[in-house]
Each structure stands twice: as structure tokens, then as C-alpha cells.
């Protein structure tokens, strides 16, 4: 089990960040995106190498309108 944006879900063995982002239609070049795992930002340059581990709490955010 991992948590993605506050929702618990299963995850396949060997799931990595690029695959997870792919599920949301996001690729390595998607702009305005950022990811944190367990409260720490994972820089875009490290996405490819970051495997998702059981228990990870993952935040995937984008830029929206705001005041």
C-alpha cells in the first residue's frame, strides 16, 4: 500500500515515479509538476531513479489558478 495524494492504493512491485506519473497522464517533460515523497520533494532529475516503496506517502502537485 502506498498513499498518493491522500488516497491509499495498491502498487505493483517495482513501480517507479515515472510510471506513477504516467497514470495521471504526466510525462517527464510535463511542466508545472512537482512530487514529494514522505514530506520531501523529489527533484525532477531524480524521478527516473526513484522507486516507490511500500508505505510511501506521495504528493503529486501542479500549478493551478490562485489568489
Amino acid at each position, binding site marked *: 500500500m502506498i498513499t*498518493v*495524494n*491522500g*488516497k491509499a492504493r495498491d502498487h505493483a512491485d517495482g513501480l517507479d515515479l515515472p510510471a506513477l506519473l504516467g*497514470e*495521471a*497522464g*504526466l510525462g517527464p517533460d510535463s*511542466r*508545472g*509538476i*512537482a*512530487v*514529494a515523497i514522505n*514530506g520531501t*520533494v523529489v*527533484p*525532477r532529475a531524480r524521478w527516473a531513479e526513484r522507486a516507490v516503496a511500500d508505505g510511501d506517502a506521495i*504528493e*503529486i*502537485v*501542479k*500549478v*493551478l*489558478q*490562485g*489568489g
Partner: protein
Amino acid sequence: MAEDLFHIAGKAFTSRLFLGTAGYPNQQVFLDSLAASGAEVVTVSIRRVDMEGGAEGILDLVRDRAWLLPNTAGCATVKDAVLTAQLAREALDTNWIKLELIGDRETLYPDVEQLVTAAAQLVDDGFTVLPYCTDDPIVCRRLADVGCAAVMPLGAPIGTGLGILNPYNIEMICVRSAVPVILDAGVGTASDAALAMELGCDAVLLNTAVSKSTDPVRMAAAMGHAVIAGRLARLAGRIPRRTRAEASSPELGLIGG
């Protein structure tokens, strides 16, 4: 008149109006409003991606049109605010952050104790921090002391359009502040924005007053003029308030006199 530039953290701006990007009827109205306002800085928020796929973000829309100022709107803890700021930095490749840390969801009033703590952490982490804060001169000084690049006291609670509830405090903050003062929240109409500048603010940040007006593009233009008007009036040195009337036309030479 020489150009009247405005600097935050070493970056110069011409326009003293900051515009929020939320709540417009549609993207075109927002773009037209932005153009009409003359604003050079816009605020954006950081929100979770919808994993089912969802609305396009507005990044492509604004990236080339304005300086982006991400916010931590809605955060109620130091931890959430700091992480949101860090995510914003990653997503937007900027170290500027409008730091919001609210005390409760009903008033959206800043929690100044947490705000100072979060501001200090973010400054240490290399951010250019612009905190949304109360109109408390001591808190504003503290925020400057911990390294904030500006302070952004509220005129009135977010979205109320009540204007500047306490002009005395805003003016006192402006007189004493070592960093730029940007009035944030509460502006309802053009004269509110002009008044903010006359009280000594360096800039005005607003969103709802434009986006939720009946005609946002026209209101954006109004706000652009209002901020210029207030700034020029401040620089020009207004006449003193007098209790007694004083004629403008010559008092001598009246017929029948």
C-alpha cells in the same frame, strides 16, 4: 517624471498591481483582464493532481506573460506550508513564495505565530518570502527581521471586499517597514486600491475584486489606473485636511463688493 520602479528582493517591477488568477469566468477573460490591468506579477496555487486526469493547469497561460508568485493558500500548519512552498519551487523553478498560513477556515485570518516560524524556515531554505499577514506592526517587523522580502498585511478578510478596515495601522506599518509593503486581501473596488497606495503601500495584490466583478476586464483596467493614481497622489504630497473652508477663486475684486 522619472520611472517609478519598485523592487522586491532586487527584482524591479514597473506595475504596482499584483493580480490573482483564480475565479475568472474563463481563460480569455483572465488573459484580457491581465492585459488590461498592466500587472506584471500573478499569483498561482499548488494543488494535487487529479490522478484520473483533470483540468489543465494555467501555467502555460501565464508563464510568458507575468512573473509567477506561487502561494501556500489554505495551509494551516507550518509543515504543510513549508512543503507546499518547496513543491512550488520545484514545479515553477522559482524561489519566490507568497506564504499563507491561516488560523481557521472560516475567517482565513493569518496565524501569525506559525507564520513567523514558517517564514524563518523558508528564508533559511533560500526562499524569497512574501507573507500574507495581519495589519499588526509588530508582526510585520518580526517578519522583516526574519528575512522576508516584503510584508503583505490584509486590508480585510479574503474575498470580503470590505476595503481597508484599519487605515491607521496600514499607514503605521508603511512608515516603519524596512521592506516593501503590499496590501493583500480586502480590496473591493478601485478607490480601495488607490487608498492603499496613498497610505504608503508599495503595491496592491488583489484577485476577487476583479475576477468576481460583473465585468472583470473593465475592473482590471480600473485597478490598474487606481494603483497608479494612488501612487502618484502619494508622491505628489496631498493637501492637508482643513477644518475650515478656503476659497480657491480670488477673494478680491468681486463685483458689488
